């Protein structure tokens, strides 16, 4: 349950992207997404260029395409939503393959899909090249309030504890022939959740007692300093800086 465990989203590597300080990467991703979102949806070619930019970043980080694509499946529920849009939206309609679709809805669906997908891809690349602990340090350096960082680090620590306890309890349940099949079993699962909660809490409480006994007062002490040079900043910000002219061009060609 150490704070230093690599998470399964992280892909170990020694690329320039892995080496960038976490707060630079966080800032770069945020700026990039802001630029993407503010691009007009009619500038279809701009989104293509953004995708090329992200693909080259992924290539620098030596992330296999399949790895990134599989992680992007998280988006699926909203893709379903987007697919429905052309059918239910109002306004002018066009006939495509015998289906009557709303023009506005089609643009809306495209808008959500394009921007959403690019946002997801950027975050996936960030999480794949940055360790969890580094991400927290990065958020801390970006002046996220310490209390939030504290809750986040406890969340990650408890994530391990919960996963462990959950596995043990599931094994215990299944060795007695229980399998959750639907609504009828919500009761059992709910009770398990309660028991799981207390078990994890008491385990984590002891760790926390040990931490505060050694002077922990809300922030992880700095043992190894993380700083970013001007060079690292300019490297990280290359991505949003390349994206910005595309966005501006998109607005002028409307």
């Amino acid at each position, binding site marked *: 349950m150490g704070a230093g465990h690599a998470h399964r989203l992280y892909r170990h590597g020694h690329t320039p992207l892995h080496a960038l300080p976490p707060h630079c990467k966080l800032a770069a991703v945020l700026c990039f997404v802001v630029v993407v979102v503010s691009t007009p949806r009619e500038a279809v070619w701009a989104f293509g260029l953004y995708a090329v930019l992200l693909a080259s970043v992924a290539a620098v980080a030596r992330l296999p395409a399949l790895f990134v694509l599989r992680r992007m499946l998280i988006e699926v529920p909203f893709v379903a939503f987007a697919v429905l849009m052309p059918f239910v939206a109002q306004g002018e309609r066009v006939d495509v393959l015998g289906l009557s679709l709303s023009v506005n809805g089609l643009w809306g669906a495209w808008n959500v899909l394009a921007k959403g997908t690019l946002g997801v891809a950027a975050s996936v690349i960030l999480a794949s090249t940055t360790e969890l602990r580094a991400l927290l340090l990065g958020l801390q350096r970006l002046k996220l309030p310490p209390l939030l960082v504290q809750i986040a680090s406890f969340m990650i*620590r408890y994530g391990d504890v919960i996963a462990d306890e959950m596995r043990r309890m599931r094994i215990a349940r299944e060795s007695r022939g229980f399998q959750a099949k639907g609504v009828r079993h919500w009761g059992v699962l709910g009770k398990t959740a309660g028991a799981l909660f207390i078990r994890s809490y008491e385990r984590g409480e002891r760790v926390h007692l040990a931490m505060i006994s050694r002077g922990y007062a809300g922030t992880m002490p700095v043992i190894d300093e993380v700083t970013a040079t001007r060079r690292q900043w300019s490297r990280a910000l290359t991505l949003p800086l390349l994206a910005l002219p595309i966005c501006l061009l998109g607005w002028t060609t409307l």
Partner: protein
Amino acid sequence: MTDSPPPASLELSLEVSGLAYAYPDGHQALFGVDFTVRRGERVALLGPNGAGKTTLVLHLNGILTAGAGSVTVAGLPVGKAHLAEIRRRVGIVFQDPDDQLFMPTVREDVAFGPAAAGLRGPALEARVEYALSLVGMEAFADRPPHHLSFGQRRRVAVATVLAMEPEILVLDEPSSNLDPASRRELADILRSLDITVLMVTHDLPYALELCPRSLILSEGTIAADGPTADILCDEPLMTTHRLELPFGFNPKTAPA
């Protein structure tokens, strides 16, 4: 230290008076605990399961707040006002080293406390090295704690606390789960330290071996206070408080 004899409060490492505590669920664990520990003493706190030993320990560095009564560490009352200093002065080694060691490497774990107190750079490195050398674990600095044996983990746990340079070392069941060799190694380490020790245990031979003085905590109060050998030989007292010597162990003949 000055030439004139220090005031009485500085002579005492720990002073507990009238301490009572009830858990938030209404269960009361301590009913007025009184005792003192002088600087440099090694004292054992004995008692059956559920006597309130761990609850008492958690009061010593202000993790639990007394419902009534007070705890004073080297003249400084335990309270919200100076918790950080209190926690530096009182080093608690918990029963399960896995709860105590939570950083990715031994080095970072030992550095955690001093770093939280503001130590940085070479001073921090020196402190870590010194603490690890006290428990003979210098060679393991870059290993992850969960790859060590149980006895080694307990020693690292002691080092994490020693790195804070505490006034008093509080050990909760230090000998539990240790094989005989690790047990002896830990005893040697504890004897070599020039520090006040309060050892919470129901390992009576270990108490006799390490601590000249013992206290019995029973039903939330101090039931006895005296030389360890005398207490262990007082059979009626021992039986009343559910304390039993291991089979074949005789405190009268044991080399103390």
